[in-house]
C-alpha cells in the first residue's frame, strides 16, 4: 500500500495491526516457549514477565471458518463476511480473524492462507478503517 493510500486508511487498532506494512503484532515468552496475540505485558499462558514483542508471520492454514450473515452488535460493515481461525505455520498459533470468503464451501481444512486487510467501516471524514483478514493463497 502506498503512503498516499495509507493517508486515506487507518488501522482499527494500530497496536495490534499495521495496515500499511500488513503485519500483526504479538508476543513471545522464552520461558513458556509460546507465542501469543495481541501483544500483552505478561505471557497469557504462564504469567511470565519476559514477553518479547514480535511481528507475527503471515502464512497460515485454514483451521476453522464460517460466514456471518447478519451484522452483529457494534458492527457497521457489510455482510456476509468470512470469519474463522487460522493457524500460523511458523508459530503454531491459532488466530481469530476475518476471512476473504463469502461462502463456507470456498475453504477446506488446511488450505494455505495469507495475511491481508479488510475494510470494515469508515470515519466521518471518509477514512477507511482496516482490520486484518486472511485470504486463501491461489495455487
Amino acid at each position, binding site marked *: 500500500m502506498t503512503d498516499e493510500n495509507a493517508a486515506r486508511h487507518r488501522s*482499527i*487498532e494500530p497496536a495490534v495491526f499495521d495496515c500499511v506494512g500488513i503485519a500483526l503484532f*504479538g508476543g513471545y515468552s522464552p520461558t513458556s516457549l*509460546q*507465542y*501469543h*496475540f*495481541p501483544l500483552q505485558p505478561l505471557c*497469557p*499462558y504462564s504469567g511470565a514477565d519476559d514477553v518479547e514483542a514480535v511481528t507475527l508471520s503471515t502464512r497460515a492454514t485454514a483451521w*476453522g*471458518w*464460517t*460466514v*456471518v*450473515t*447478519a*451484522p*452483529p*452488535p*457494534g*458492527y*457497521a*460493515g457489510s455482510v456476509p*463476511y468470512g*470469519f*474463522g*481461525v487460522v493457524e500460523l505455520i511458523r508459530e*503454531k*498459533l*491459532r*488466530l*481469530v*480473524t*476475518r476471512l476473504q470468503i463469502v461462502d*463456507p464451501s470456498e475453504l477446506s*481444512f488446511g488450505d494455505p492462507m495469507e495475511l491481508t486487510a479488510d475494510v*470494515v*467501516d469508515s470515519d466521518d471524514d471518509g477514512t477507511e*478503517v482496516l*482490520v486484518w483478514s486472511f485470504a486463501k493463497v491461489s495455487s
Partner: protein
Amino acid sequence: MSSVEITGIGMHPFGRFDGVTVTDMGVHAVRTALSDAGNPAFQAAYCGTAYSGVASGHKVLSAIARTGIPIVDVEAGCASGAAALSLGAAAIRSGQYDTVLVFGIEKMPKGIIRSSFFEPWREQAGLAATPSYFALRAQRLMRESGLTKQDLALVCVKNRAHGVHNPYAMFRKAVTVDEVLGSRIVCDPLHLWMLCSPNEGAAAVVLQRSDRPRIALRAAVLCSHLPGSVLGEATPFAGVDDSLITPPSTLAARQAYAEAECGPTDFDLVECQDTDAARELLAWEELEICVKGQQPQRLADGVHQHGGALPINVSGGLLSKGEPLGASALGQVVELVEHLRGNAGLRQVPGARIGLAHTVGRGANASAVIVSRDR
C-alpha cells in the same frame, strides 16, 4: 460438614414478557420458592444476573420487604445462577448460615447477545459475533467427532419434543429435522433453530442446613477455564494446540463427581448447556457421559431422549426454554428437583433419584450441580 437441602423452588417462565420488569420476575420466583419452603427466615441471599444492573438482587428483596441481610449479586456469564448457588451452599456447609435464598434473574434484548466483554473495536471489526464462535466450535466438533448437520438437527428435535411438556418453556412446539435444516443459516453450520434465544425469566431455590435432607444439594461447583484454547467460551484472540488442555466443564464435572461420590453412570437425568445444538453434543464429551465420536450412535438409539437410558434436557433445554443468563442454571436445578419430587408431569423421568445440571459460558466459567433424593 453439614448437608445442604433444597427445601423450596420457584420459577418465572422463560420467554418474552413486555411490561414485566426483571424485578417483577424475580419477585415471582422468590415468593414461589419461599412459599414452597414454608416461608422460612433466611440469613443471606445470592442473586445471579449478568445484565440486570447495579443492586438488582436488592430490588427484588426490597419489593417483598425481606432486606436487612447480606444480598450479594453474582455475575459469571451463563453460569451466574450456579455461581450464586455455589456461594449459598458453601455458606451453609461452613456453618455460617442455616438458611439462604438463591435466585437468578434476567431480561435480555432480542438477538445476538451484546457483551461489554468485547472491546468496542473488536465489535467494529466484526470479531464479536457470538454465534460465529459457536459455529467454529460446531464445525470442529463435526470434524473431530464425525458428526453431521443431521446430528445437530436431531438434538433440536429431541429437546423441542421435550419442551412441549414444559409450561416454563418459550417454545412448546415439536420440530422435525427438515424444519430445523430449513430454517435460515445464521453462521454455517448453525441454522437459526439450532441456536437458543436469549430471553427473560427468573428462578429461585431455598437452601437449608439438614442432617437428613430429602432433596440434597450434593455438589455445586464453579470452575473457570485454563488458558490456551482459542474456541472455548473465554473467546480469546488467539490460542495454541489445546488437545491436552482440560476444558472448564470437565474440570467442574470431575470436582462435582468427586464431591458427590458419583459419576455419569449414576445419573437418572442431566440438564446440560445447549446454547446451540453442537454445544450439547460437546457437553456430552466434556461431562464424560460419552467418549468422542459416540454421539451419532447415541442420537440414533435415543439413549438421551425421554424414555432412554439417560435422558438429557428433558426440560426442553435452552433450545426450548431460551436463555435468561442469570436464571438459566437455577432453572435447571428447579427442573431436577421437580423430577426428584415426582412432580414433573409428562416430563417426569420415572423413579429419578439423582441428576446433574451443567452450564458453561462467558468468562469462561462452567458449573456442575448434583442433586439427589436421599429419603
